[in-house]
C-alpha cells in the first residue's frame, strides 16, 4: 500500500520539542461489554494483550490497547493489519453485541519528543499535565485548542497524540506553534 499517505506525509519540526507526523497507524474502535470474557479473549487473540485498566493504554509487541470509555477500546496495530484484525475480532465475537470498526484512516498521529512535551500539550489541553496528573501509560481523551484529541506518554520525553484526519494539518501547525523554541513556561528544571 505504498500509495497510502498520512495527513502531513511525514513532516517534522524541531523546536522546544520535536514534532513528527508519526505516519499511518492501524486503529480499531471496539465497543462492547468490557467485562465480558469473550471480548477480552477476542482482544487477546487479535493483539496478544489483555484489557487495559480504565484510562490506561497497554502496549505489547503487536500493538497497543487503550481504554477509551466504559464500553470502548481503541486497538493499535500495524496499518496494514487493521482490516484483518477487525475480521479476527468479528469472527471471535460472532453473534455477540459489539462493534469493531477500522478507523485508521480517520486519524492523524503525531509523535512529540523532548523534555517539554508536557508543557507543549498544556498550552492547549485542559488536562493536569503533571506527572501525577497524567502518569506515563495513561491516555487522555480531551481537546487541544479547538479540536478533539487523545494522547499519552510512553516515557517522560515521548508523547503520542491522535486527532481526526481532517484537522491533522491544523493540529500539526498548532503543535509546531506551541513548540516554538523559547516559549515553554519551564515550570521545573
Amino acid at each position: 500500500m505504498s500509495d497510502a499517505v498520512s495527513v502531513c506525509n511525514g513532516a517534522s519540526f524541531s523546536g522546544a520539542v520535536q514534532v513528527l507526523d508519526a505516519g499511518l497507524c492501524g486503529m480499531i474502535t471496539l465497543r462492547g461489554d468490557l467485562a465480558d470474557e469473550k471480548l477480552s479473549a477476542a482482544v487477546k487473540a487479535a493483539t496478544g494483550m489483555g484489557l487495559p485498566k480504565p484510562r490506561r493504554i497497554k502496549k505489547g509487541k503487536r500493538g497497543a490497547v487503550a481504554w477509551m470509555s466504559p464500553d470502548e477500546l481503541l486497538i493499535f496495530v500495524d496499518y496494514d493489519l487493521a482490516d484483518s484484525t477487525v475480521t479476527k475480532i468479528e469472527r471471535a465475537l460472532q453473534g455477540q453485541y459489539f462493534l469493531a470498526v477500522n478507523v485508521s484512516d480517520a486519524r492523524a498521529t503525531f509523535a512529540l519528543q523532548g523534555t517539554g512535551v508536557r508543557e507543549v500539550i498544556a498550552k492547549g489541553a485542559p488536562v493536569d499535565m503533571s506527572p501525577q496528573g497524567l502518569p506515563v501509560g495513561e491516555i487522555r481523551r480531551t481537546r487541544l485548542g479547538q479540536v478533539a484529541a487523545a494522547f499519552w506518554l510512553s516515557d517522560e520525553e515521548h508523547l503520542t497524540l491522535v486527532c481526526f484526519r481532517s484537522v491533522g494539518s491544523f493540529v500539526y501547525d498548532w503543535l509546531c506553534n506551541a513548540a516554538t523554541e523559547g516559549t515553554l513556561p519551564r515550570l521545573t528544571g
Partner: protein
Amino acid sequence: MSARLARHGRLIDRRKPLQFTFNGRHLHGYQGDTLASALLANGQTLVGRSFKYHRPRGIVAAGPEEPNALVGLGKGAGFEPNQRATTTELFDGLIAESQNHWPSLEFDLGAVNKAMARFFPAGFYYKTFMFPRAAWEHLFEPIVRGAAGLGRVPQEKDKDTYEYFYHTTDILIVGGGIAGLQAAEIAGKSGLRVLLIEQTPDWGGRAMVDGVQINGIGAADWVEKALARLRAMPNVILRSRMMGAGVYDHGYALGYERLSDHDPKIPGPRHRLWRIRARRIITATGAIERPLSFAGNDIPGVMLAGAVRDYLENYGVSPGELTLVVTNNDNAYLSAIALHEAGLTVPAIIDARPEATGALPQKARALGLRVETGCAIGTVHGGKRVTSVTLCNQAGSGAILDEIPCDAVAMSGGWSPVVHLWSHCGGKLRWDADQAMFRPDPARPPRGANGAGFVIAAGTANGHLAAEAVMEDAAEAAAAAVRALGAKADPAKRATARSMPEMPILPVWSMPANAGPKLRMKTWLDFQNDVKVSDVRLAAQEGYESVEHTKRYTTLGMASDQGKLSNINGLAVLADSLSRDIPQVGTTTFRPPYHPISFGAIAGEARGPLFKPLRKSPIHDWLDANGAHWEPVADWRRPYCLRRSGETVKEAVTREILNTRQNVGLLDASTLGKIIVKGPDAGRFLDMLYTNMMSSLKVGRCRYGLMCNENGFLIDDGVVVRLSDDTFLCHTTSGGSDRIHAWMEEWLQTEWWDWQVYTANVTEQFAQIGIVGPKARSVLEALGGMDVSREALPFMAFQEGQIAGIRARVYRISFSGELSYEIAVPAALGQAFWNKALAAGGDFGMQPYGTEALHVMRAEKGFIMIGDETDGTVIPQDLNLGWAISRKKDDFLGKRAQQRPHMVDPNRKQLVGLLTEDPQVVLPDAAHAVEGPKRANGMENIIGHVTSSYYSPTLGHSIAMALIKGGSRRMGETLRFPVADGVVIRAQVVDPVFLDKEGERQNV
C-alpha cells in the same frame, strides 16, 4: 515639582540609565522604574485628561488602582492604548503618549466642558435621550461621542504573540507579599502542589516600604530568605509578573503572565494566560488606600499617602518639595515621617480625628512636624498643579482657618482590602465598622461543588492591617487550605512580624463634614470618569437607591479602573444621602478581570492560520493546486468550482455542469457524514430516527432517508446503506455528521439506553469520490476490478471489492440524476484513487466539478438541500416528500408533531418549482413572493420565498424552487417577486422537477 532624589530607591539601579519618550519628549529613568515613577522623576506630574470635563490629571497611585495615568504605549504594530503607567515597567526606548486631550495635554480645548459642568450632571447621558427628541441624534450624540472615549484604537495588526497555559495545582496563592510568602511556606511544607503568583516583578509587597520587621530582621532580608526556601521546594512554583485576574466556579482561576512587557526584545509570547485549576485558592492580595473627599482632590499633585511613600522608598522620587499630608488614620504619618527623613518638607499633617495620640503621630511631633488635629482641607488650589490648600475644621462646613502653600498633597482615607478575587465567585463581605472597611466574611466564602469554601482570604486582604496579624492570618489560611485537602500543616511554624502600632481610624466620607454644594461640586470620587460627590447626591435625590443603579446612572466606578479608588467612598456618600448605614447600601458586584488584561491574551494562539480549525478532505491539496474556488461548508472547505486559467467562476460552473451531463464528472464527496450503526436493535433504532422504514432495507441496498426532530421538522437527510444484518451505514449532510452522531448518542444514552445499538462516526475514514455522468460506467470499467454493470450493480445498490487495485465500496446512488457511482476508499488512499480516476477518465472527457455544479444539477432534478429548502420550520410534507414517510410504522421521531393541526394545514408553505417569464432572468435567492392589494404602509402580503435559484445551462433557462403558501394548489399560477428598485420578476409555478422526471438518465 516632583523630582528624583539622590538617595533612596531600593528597586532602581542607578547604574543602568534608560531613555524613553513621553509625548515626544526625551526623558530619562533607571532600570527598575515604572513609567509612573520615571515620569514623576522627570517632573511630569500632568499625565492625562479626565473623561468628561477634560480636567488635568496627575498620578494618584503606585499600583493597579491608578485611575489617571493611562497612556498609549509603543507605536505601529506594537501600539497599545490605555496602559497604566503605574504597572508599566520602564525599558530603554519606551514610547508613551498621553490620552484624551485635544489638541495637546498642556492645552486642551475640551476643558471647556469643565465650565459647562453644571450642564453635565449625573445621568447627563441618559437625560439627553429624553428631551427634546431630535437633540440626541443631532446634537448630543455627536458631541458626546467625539469627546468621550479613552485612547486611540491601534491601526495595525498586533505584532506580538500570545498563548494559554493550563495548570493544575492543589493550592494557588495570589499575591507575593509577606502574607503570600508566609502562606506558601506553610503550604509548601505539606508537600502539596503550590503555585504562588505576584503581579509585580518584585516580591514582598508593601512590607519593606512600611518598615516591617520579620523574625527580627528587615522585611527585605526575610523576603530574600523566604524566597530561597520556597525555591528549594520542588512542589512550589513561583511566578512573578503574573496577576490573578479572575476566580471562577470549581476552583478555576485565570493568571495573566506578562513575559516581555518589561523588555520587548525578549522573544516568545508577550502574555501567557494561565488557566488554573486549583483545589484551594488563597487570596493574599493586600489592600488599596482610599482617597479623601475634599474639594480639589483631583488636581495633579494630590496623591495617595501610601503611593507617596512607595515612590520615595522604591524609586527615590519625591512627589513635591512641599508635601502636605491629610489623613484620618495613623498610617499616613509613615509617609510624613519618610518625607521628612528624606530631607523634604512636610508643611503640615492635617488629621481629621479630634486627637492623634498614637506612636506615629507622637514621632511626627517629636520630629517637629506640624500636626493639625480635628482639621480638614477646605479646598485645594491650583490648576495643572497644586499650589496651596486651605485649612478648616473637619466638623464645620469649610470656614478657612489658614492657607498652606504646598505643591503636593498626600492623602489617606484608610485602607480597603482587595476583596475582588474573593468576591468574583460569590464570596460575601462584612462591614468592619472599627476599621471602616469591607472585609471577607469567612462564614460565606465562594463554595465549590461539595459546599465547601474554596477561596480563603489571607493577611491584609482579609482585613488585617498590622504585620503580626498578617503573618498569623496567612499561616492559618495556609493551614486551613492544607487541612481541607487532607494533608498536615503547622501554622505555628510561622514568622513573627512587627510594625508600628496604629490607633483607630475615624471614618471620614466628606471633608469637611458639612461641606456645602459648592465644595461637593469640586470633590471628586471617580477621577477617571469625572464623578463627584454632588453627582451621587443628585442621583440619590432623583430616587436612585440601589448602589448598582447609582453606579450606572452616575458612571461611578465604570471606568477602566473599575472603581478601585472610588467605590467605597461613593457608596458611603450614597449611604449618607439616603440616611442608611454603609452595609445596608452594600457594594457593587466585583467582576473579573481584577485589572484589564490584553485582548491578545484572551485570544491566545487562535489567530491567523490557527484562528479556527479548517477541516480538509483527503483531496484538499490537489483541489487547491487545481483552481479550487473555495467555499466554506461547515468547518470544511469545498471547491465551489475548479477554474481553469482565464475562466470566470460562472464559466467554470457552466462548463462543469455541461461536461458532467454530457460526459462524466469527478466529485470529491468525502465530507459527507458517515455513521456506522450496529447491533441487534439497529433496524428498530433507525426506524425511529428516520421517517421512512429502514429495518426492511435489504443487505447490499441503499435507501434515501429523512430525519426529523421531535417537533417534526426536517433536520438531516442522506442515504442509508445496509452493510449486514445488524450493521447500517448512515450518510449525513457534510455539516451534519457530528450533530447527527450526537443526536443518535443522545437518544441511545438517555431514552433508549436498553436498546442494543452501537454507533461510530467514520466520516473521515473514507475518501468518497463521485464519478457522475453518462460515461461514468465506462470510467469504472477502465479503472477495473469490479463488475459495475446495470445487472451486477443496479441503482440504489452497492458492492464491496477492489477498484484499480484499491479496496473500495461502490454505491450506485445519484444526487445529479445522472448515472452515478460514489466510491468510498480508505482516506489515506483517497488521493491515489483520485489520481487513478483522473487518468482513467481522461479518454472519456472527465473533469472534476465543484459544489455549485452539484447544487445546480440537484436543483434541475428538484432534489432538496438541507439548509436551503429547510430552515428549521419545514416538515417533509412541505417538500412533497410524503412518499418518504412511512405509514406502517407506529412511531418515529416527529410523527406525532406532524399530525398537529398546523402541520396538516393545506395552506402551509409548500415547495414548488418556478419558471421566470423571461427565461434568462434568475430570481435572487430568498426573493419574496407577494400577492393581494397593498396595505396602508405600502407593503404587500408575503406568501413565500425563493429557496434555491440558478441558471440551468442544461435546460437553457433559469430554474428556482420556492416555499409558497398553499403552493401545491397553485400550479400554473404566475407569482410576483418584487426585487430592488421597483423591479418585479414574474414567475410561473411549476413542478420542481425540471429534468428527467422519469429518472431514465440515472437508471441506465
